[in-house]
């Protein structure tokens, strides 16, 4: 997309649904991040407002953060796959591409390259957003190969440690011993080391976190997008609990995320020296741009 493709012709503005017009008038398109972004959520028309995910779903909450953190929403494309997340991602006012299960990083490779050929003078951001099953199990080879090829886009894994959308099968990201509705005997191998795999495969910026602090979560997303523009693949591995499959009472979802932050989702950030230099430049130039 681009700003030109979303600004209504003046004669038609009054025929467009209110929702759309508000998005153009009060949404984040073409505005400075300091005026919108995560800090101002609630004070402007956000890119994703309605979604059908479970009440208290931590994944839905994080998806709202992703969209509020975008540095360039009018020139962003998201790519996803089957799994709960796409139910909200597909409702955002950003073009979303949905392929076969697990092929998001393969599609993103082609799309990112095509954008660079088609729009050499414009920055288009491509982000894949998928669950642990889509990213690390069934899409594993496509995820890894995109990283090995150093494809320049951002990969975000919404890790709820289960196949949530299909009713609770174990995934490679479930912990050893996890007993789930459709894995009653308990998982008999451990959680895959996604962060280490990403670093080994050549990602230039990798973060693992439980997003209890929205500013910190947004900063990681923005850094990942900025680094992917010029340097190489970037990866965010984020804990987004499934309160249904893990029977977390809705009021305790945040508490659970806090606990995870002290445990296996303790904040870890990896960056290459080039990425470090890039962030230093961007963040000193305009501190608000990233944080």
């Amino acid at each position, binding site marked *: 997309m681009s700003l030109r493709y979303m600004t209504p*012709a003046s004669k038609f503005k009054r025929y467009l649904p209110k929702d*759309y017009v508000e998005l153009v008038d009060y949404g984040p398109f073409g505005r400075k991040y300091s005026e919108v972004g995560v800090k101002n959520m609630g004070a402007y028309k956000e890119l994703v407002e309605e*979604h059908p995910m479970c009440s208290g779903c931590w994944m839905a909450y994080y998806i709202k953060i992703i969209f509020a953190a975008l540095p360039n929403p009018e020139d962003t494309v998201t790519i996803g796959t089957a799994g709960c997340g796409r139910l909200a991602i597909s409702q955002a006012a950003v073009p979303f591409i949905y392929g076969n299960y697990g092929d998001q990083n393969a599609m993103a490779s082609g799309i990112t390259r095509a954008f660079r050929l088609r729009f050499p003078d414009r920055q288009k951001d491509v982000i894949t957003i998928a669950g642990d099953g889509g990213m690390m199990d069934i899409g594993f080879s496509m995820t890894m190969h995109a990283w090995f090829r150093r494809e320049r886009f951002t990969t975000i894994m919404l890790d709820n440690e289960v196949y949530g959308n299909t009713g609770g099968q174990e995934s490679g990201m479930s912990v050893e011993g996890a007993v789930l509705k459709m894995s009653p005997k308990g998982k008999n191998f451990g959680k895959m080391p996604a962060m280490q795999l990403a670093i080994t495969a050549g990602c230039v910026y990798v973060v693992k976190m439980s997003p209890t602090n929205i500013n910190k979560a947004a900063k990681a997303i923005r850094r990942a997008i900025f680094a992917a523009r010029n340097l190489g693949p970037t990866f965010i591995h984020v804990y987004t609990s499934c309160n249904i499959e893990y029977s977390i009472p809705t009021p305790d979802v945040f508490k659970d995320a806090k606990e995870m932050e002290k445990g296996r989702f303790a904040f870890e950030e990896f960056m290459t020296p080039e990425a470090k230099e890039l962030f230093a430049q961007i963040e000193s130039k305009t501190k608000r741009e990233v944080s």
Partner: protein
Amino acid sequence: MANLGPAHYAPYPVATYDGLLTPPEGKAMLLTDMVDEEVAMREVARVMLTSENATIFPGPQVLYAWSEEAKKKATLIKEMSEVLNAKMIPMYDYRPKYPKIDPEVEINPNHPNLTIWHNEIKACIFIGVHCHYANVALKIVRSETDCYTVGMCALSGHEDAMATIRDQHAEDLARFIEIAKEVKQELGK
């Protein structure tokens, strides 16, 4: 509620099965007849002016101000709606709408019949809708409603529309508006 169209819930591309193809350059298609463009324009104007709840469905190519031609077309389509006494309901987003569309104010290519049923539209013009979504929408409308569809197309037309006028650019729309004014006068509308 619904009046099922002549093809009923046909699972195949009905128009093509019936041997209909898009018209060659310079020609237009009215139901099964190949006619001159002006003949088609007159008939489209007549149908729109005499059908209940006639509506224009502008799509993204004319809704958004992305080029000078698009802006010109937007102005002309607005005028066209006034001349034809037609309502305007935009097809502004192609994604299936969750939880449900508001058929009063929007039409979606994945279930265009909902808007047509809800507003009891008996004639409509699709304009500025990208080819593949126009094709999908027109097929659904053809088989699930009794609405007379017009494809006013900037490229080669749509066989699933009951009337298809091709290669329609700003100057052609202006010509159509003039013809529609004449027809309106003749009909005393």
